[in-house]
């Protein structure tokens, strides 16, 4: 197996995640796209760790998983709060900081 197989797959997933973040209006869907990006990074971490025969890749993939769990927890709490206050999770309405 070539490492580029994994890296290219990860890159495509990353690009999909970017697309999702930019185009989705629903807060939860944006969070899901973020998960796509994090997972693509994880693939890279583990793949390059295996390539260089280093355990660091796996360890940091674990850390990323942990951080992602924390991120989803807080992110969803925020989304729920927004929903409670505005009865909508549409991010394009969240522009009170407009210049």
């Amino acid at each position, binding site marked *: 197996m070539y490492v580029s197989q994994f890296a290219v797959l990860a890159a495509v997933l990353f690009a999909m995640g970017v697309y999702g*973040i930019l185009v989705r209006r629903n807060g939860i869907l944006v969070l899901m796209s973020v998960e796509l990006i994090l997972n693509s990074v994880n693939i890279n971490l583990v793949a390059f760790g295996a390539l260089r025969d280093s355990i660091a890749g796996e360890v940091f993939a674990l850390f990323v998983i942990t951080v992602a769990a924390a991120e989803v927890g807080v992110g969803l709490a925020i989304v729920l709060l927004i929903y409670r206050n505005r009865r909508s999770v549409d991010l*394009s309405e*969240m*522009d009170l*900081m*407009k*210049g």
Partner: protein
Amino acid sequence: MGWTTSAAAATQTTASVLAAETSEAAEEVLAASGWFLENAWLIPAFPALSFLLILFFGKRFPKRGSEIGILAVGASLVFALAAAIQWISEVNRADDKNAALDAVSTTWTWWQNGGINFTFGTLVDGLAVTLLVVVTIVSLLVHIYSTDYLADDRRYTHFFAFLSFFTASMLFFVLSENTLQMIVGWELVGVCSFVLIGHWWEEKPNSSAALKAMLTNRVGDIGLLVGVSVLFFAAGETFSVLELNERAISGNIEHLPLLVGACALTAAVLSKSGQFFLHTWLPDAMAGPTPVSALIHAATMVVAGVYLIARLYGVFFEGFAIAGSSVNLLAVIGGITTLVGASLAFVQRDIKRVLAYSTISQLGYMVLALGVGAWTAAVFHLFTHAFFKACLFLGSGSVSHAVHSFDMKSDMGGLRKYMPHTYRTFMIASLALAGLPPLAGFWSKDEILAGTGGWGLVGGTGGNGAYTVMLVMGLITAALTAAYMTRCVYLTFFGQYRGHGQPHESGPRIVVPLWILAVLAVGAGWLNLPPGFQLVPENWTERFGHFVEPNEALSYFPKIAHADPSWTLAILSAVVALAGIALAGRYYFGKVAAVSPSATELSDGMVARSSLAAAGHNLLVNKYYLDHLYSGVIAGGVKGPIARAAYKFNQDGIDKVVNEVGERAVQAGHFAYDVIDQKVVDGMVNSSGVAPQLAGEEIRRMQTGKVQTYAGIVFIAAALLALGFIVFL
């Protein structure tokens, strides 16, 4: 050291007795041994166990758990005293052999990882023993006191549980063998103080105060974490206190990381020991029950910071290059703190707040002493201060118990008649705090002042450097301290009673601890009479320092120089204190009392005058100036505003700064608008005025407030950046 050995005489050639004593360094290092020293872990174990017992079963006991706490702390006290006795006898044994006594370090390996031994254990030496004794004595008295003071409290059992835990945490911290353990103890102390300060959390100010204490301490705790980490790596991966000191002293740690580590630890001390500018939580912490305040201020929480410096003194001594200097971070912080604390104590109405600022000031003294290299003086001051400050706090509690208020101006006065015991003990402790001979505070304060080594002009010499500025600060504080305590005593005990109801003396469980502490406040100072004190036999002097300070033959303690005591300086400091008392006394007992027995001040002149009295002896010579102050003309004069300004800064200084910045920004904005938009546009160059306007309008649109737009920009920019790297590199 030389007081028992004949070998001492041979080498006793230098002028100073103390220098002579330390110069005859022991030839060998003797390992101390003793059951109580090796099993010191039992001392924190008792209160820790009692915490669990009270927490789970406390309410089933006839006294609702308090008896468990008292028993446990009593047992700790017995063990601590036994350890102290054993330590003293070991030191004597070592003296007989002209050897240095090494600290008793008992460690267990917790776990091993990556070649690092994570250990836990106890480290007992003179310093630790001192703290053990102080903490257990004060804690026991506070426990006994609390059974009366909080008799009807709704969370009586809970209170005692945490009182025990607080004690256990502090003892654990004191016995820490390594810095990791210190962090644990440090945090435990912080958590307990949070719980106890917020004991009556139903009222918003109390819970806010607890939160403030917690948060302010968190700021410093980061410093501790950083400092410990830096030192861990800089010293070649060790947490051990002894090894850290050793490696710092022997120069195995490079100076820069050592300095960084010491600075980070100083940040921790700033918050925990209430040093300027992180001291603000300490006065607010008065929201807790008075016994807790006594415990926090005398024996546990705040002295943890000072203890940290004393424990890791090798690191600080080398890191700040204390020897041979005339200024360093610790000394400056201590000096500023002691002045700020003392001046702020003037403007308080709340008796506990006076004492709180006083504590800040006295802690500043200790830090100052450590900063100038007067290690023994600092520890000794910690020792004596614990007794008289605990006595003052418990006394203030007794007073407030009687009058149901802490406000000196509106609810106290004349209590001398109603509460004779409280009055007497409070007076003794106040005089001790003010530093009048022969009370405890005098001896320790004098030692600190001598330790600055700044008195070379007149007589004594031999400090670690010429910290003249610190000496002046210390002297000013001495006067201020005497003055504000006079004010406090007058407002509380003299004049006419201004409160409601009939105050009465507190019960024996309050009065007896007060008397015990008062006796200690008188006697504790005699433990460390200055060397060469001609009025007593030579082997009565320097007892405390002899047993507490590690022998200079030991590798974990830096070679500090010892200042020579000087009669002149001692008399001067006593005179300064007396002057403070006299000025404030003349104001209160003379002028104010003459107006009316129930008066608390002369129109508005009080602050100005007593502050002036405290301001220092150089102002005292100016009679004219004093007269002005006496008549209250200089209400808006010089010193009063400074005290107030300091208080103001204390309370809302930051706000002011922010507002100021905001106003300036607005002004700048107006200026820009007036000049650029109006003048320029009205002027010739219309187009150049329109251009920035349009540009601003366009740029404004980029800020849509939509997160995703920003995200898109970020992604594209990152991709372009990466593209740039690919193309050009």
